[in-house]
């Protein structure tokens, strides 16, 4: 396998983007930041891949319009996934592994506020037995949270602890749109929203975009003193139905964890849009108590659709670059109630980059 590292990262998060859902205007400065971080121009990028959804944009082929932000003369090698940035990164990593290219810039964007996000996402459910009822994202997470509370796997206090720690950490994250921790007691005193979820248990509706730069071998070493080497990527999927899986578990996350080497991980950036989902992920990944979880504040403090997962990769990579940590794991999710789970292990050395 080729040694591939994350060497660039840029993001924007906001409650409401005052601009077109094509987000071209949002992407141009992100690409400029990536060029500045790497010293490259667009012609140094071997492969481009984006993640977005037309259902979010409310128009067809929005990803084609977004290509304007790249500039396509001479033509570029470009692809798209109807998934989060983390999956666009997965495709780019594979592309680099084929040997066809050495570098890639992957990006994602979404204006969640253009529609009713929790309703729009009902279109990712079973079209015969679920979508006609329009089960919204928050409700499906609520059913999962209740299942765990009833089973005694977690409680409201444990959920509030996740939220309070996230809001506290987000104070240091300039991109977080919800921040400011208080105390578990104060959070528990807040009213229920979608019982058993309080509003702070749910990621805020977030607009935004993000970009990651990948490079192989010496190209990565030229960009960073400490590139964030990808030690392994794995992705598994559970059945979509809410009735046929134990909602207190995420078997696909456990399988993804078994496929990579998590020994010695110091930092975990987990894409948990609902507080109880962090608790599920910690268990499925078998994270020790001393692993620092979501130092960025995580998805509970800002979760732009289609980049919220990839941002976890960028946040973890930035901590490798800075020397703050030597090994981290980034996680991205998709689908209802943690149906899909992707893990990306990042390290300061190329040791173990054989997955």
């Amino acid at each position: 396998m080729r040694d591939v590292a994350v060497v660039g990262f840029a993001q924007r998060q906001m409650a409401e983007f005052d601009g077109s859902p094509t987000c071209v205007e949002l992407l141009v400065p992100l690409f400029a930041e990536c060029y500045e971080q790497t010293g490259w121009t667009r012609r140094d990028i071997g492969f481009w891949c984006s993640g977005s959804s037309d259902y979010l944009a409310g128009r067809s082929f929005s990803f084609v319009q977004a290509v304007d932000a790249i500039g396509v003369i001479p033509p570029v090698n470009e692809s798209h996934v109807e998934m989060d940035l983390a999956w666009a990164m997965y495709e780019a990593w594979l592309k680099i592994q084929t040997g066809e290219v050495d570098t890639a810039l992957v990006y994602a964007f979404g204006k969640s506020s253009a529609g009713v996000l929790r309703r729009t996402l009902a279109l990712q459910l079973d079209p015969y037995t679920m979508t006609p009822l329009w089960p919204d994202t928050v409700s499906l997470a609520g059913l999962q949270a209740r299942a765990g509370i009833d089973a005694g796997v977690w409680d409201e206090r444990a959920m509030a602890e996740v939220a309070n720690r996230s809001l506290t950490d987000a104070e240091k994250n300039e991109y977080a749109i919800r921040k400011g921790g208080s105390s578990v007691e104060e959070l528990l005193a807040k009213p229920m929203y979608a019982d058993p979820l309080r509003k702070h248990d749910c990621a805020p509706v977030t607009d935004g975009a993000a970009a990651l730069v990948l490079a192989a071998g010496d190209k990565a070493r030229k960009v960073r003193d400490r590139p964030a080497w990808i030690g392994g990527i794995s992705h598994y999927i559970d059945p979509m139905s809410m009735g046929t899986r134990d909602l207190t578990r995420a078997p696909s996350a456990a399988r993804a964890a078994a496929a990579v080497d998590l020994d010695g991980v110091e930092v975990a950036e987990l894409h948990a849009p609902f507080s109880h989902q962090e608790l599920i992920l910690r268990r499925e990944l078998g994270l020790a108590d001393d692993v620092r979880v979501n130092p960025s504040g995580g998805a509970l403090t800002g979760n732009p659709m289609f980049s919220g997962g990839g941002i976890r990769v960028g946040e973890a990579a930035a901590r490798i670059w800075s020397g703050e940590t030597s090994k981290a794991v980034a996680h991205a999710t998709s689908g209802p109630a943690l149906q899909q789970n992707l893990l990306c292990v990042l390290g300061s050395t190329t040791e173990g980059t054989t997955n």
Partner: protein
Amino acid sequence: MTRTLSAPVTVAFDYTRSTGPVLGRFLTGLRDATVVGARTSDGTVVVPPPEYDPVTHEPVTDFVEVASTGTVTSWTWVPEPVKGQPFDRPFAWALVALDGADAPLLHALDVASPEQVSSGMRVQVRWAEERVGAITDIACFEPEGAEAAGVSTSSTTDAGSTTGDGVTGVITPVSLDYLYAASPEESAFYRGLNEGRIVGQRCPSCQKVYVPPRSACPSDGTPTAEEVEVSQTGTITTFCVVNVPFLGQKITPPYVSAYVLLDGADIAVLHLILGVPAEEVRMGMRVKAVWKPREEWTYSLENIDHFEPTGEPDADYESYRHHL
């Protein structure tokens, strides 16, 4: 003035899907006011039936009729329902293990407050009055013992009802509402049209003028900043004669749709050509914008009613061959 113009947009489509034998059996059952699950290879009864066995991956064929009463295994409260949900007032979603089934079914539960629902409570199906073979044939669940508000099930499960034609397809209407914002550059374009002007933007790198303007030059990715008003006169670069009627057509065929390269612009706009017989329209023809009466103007390219010939000599092919 806000930075961008925006307008409500609804995107709607009726998805027509075939059901196949398994979901068809399930939906046929609902139409006939019975709930049908399937026994999978591990012996459990799953509702709705999965099309393939999760362990053996064989098609599922062992259908089992289960009760329309059951037990809540999990629930959540919906304080602010969204369009299309079973209720437009607060309600609960519940996972309900129907008697005779092992896997719970997701549906709405009609209770007035979260205090009236709990895990373990007994509920029953409330059937929709009109049933068509869809998941919405179950109107919702309701606490067990509630007076049947819908049609009594016994009258519709008479012998013979399930031997009629089975459900083979569903039509699922999907409609999404957006507040669609134009980009700042597009907003400048539409504001210009509202004032009778056609505004583009010039790329600072390659000097190309885009009409309508874009947020970045698609050739080189440079943000476009300089606003340029272009001429209302231009050249037809290419065209087509529309002879075929289609849904939503506003003009009676035949008519001519053409790309008009406005003088000063580097990209053509698509518009209607009138004031000349269709067979006389040609590449290179010089045309000018004909605006609607001022009182009808809005933030739209439709402020220009059509383009018509200026009577000038045709443009040289060389003058527009790079814009085809």
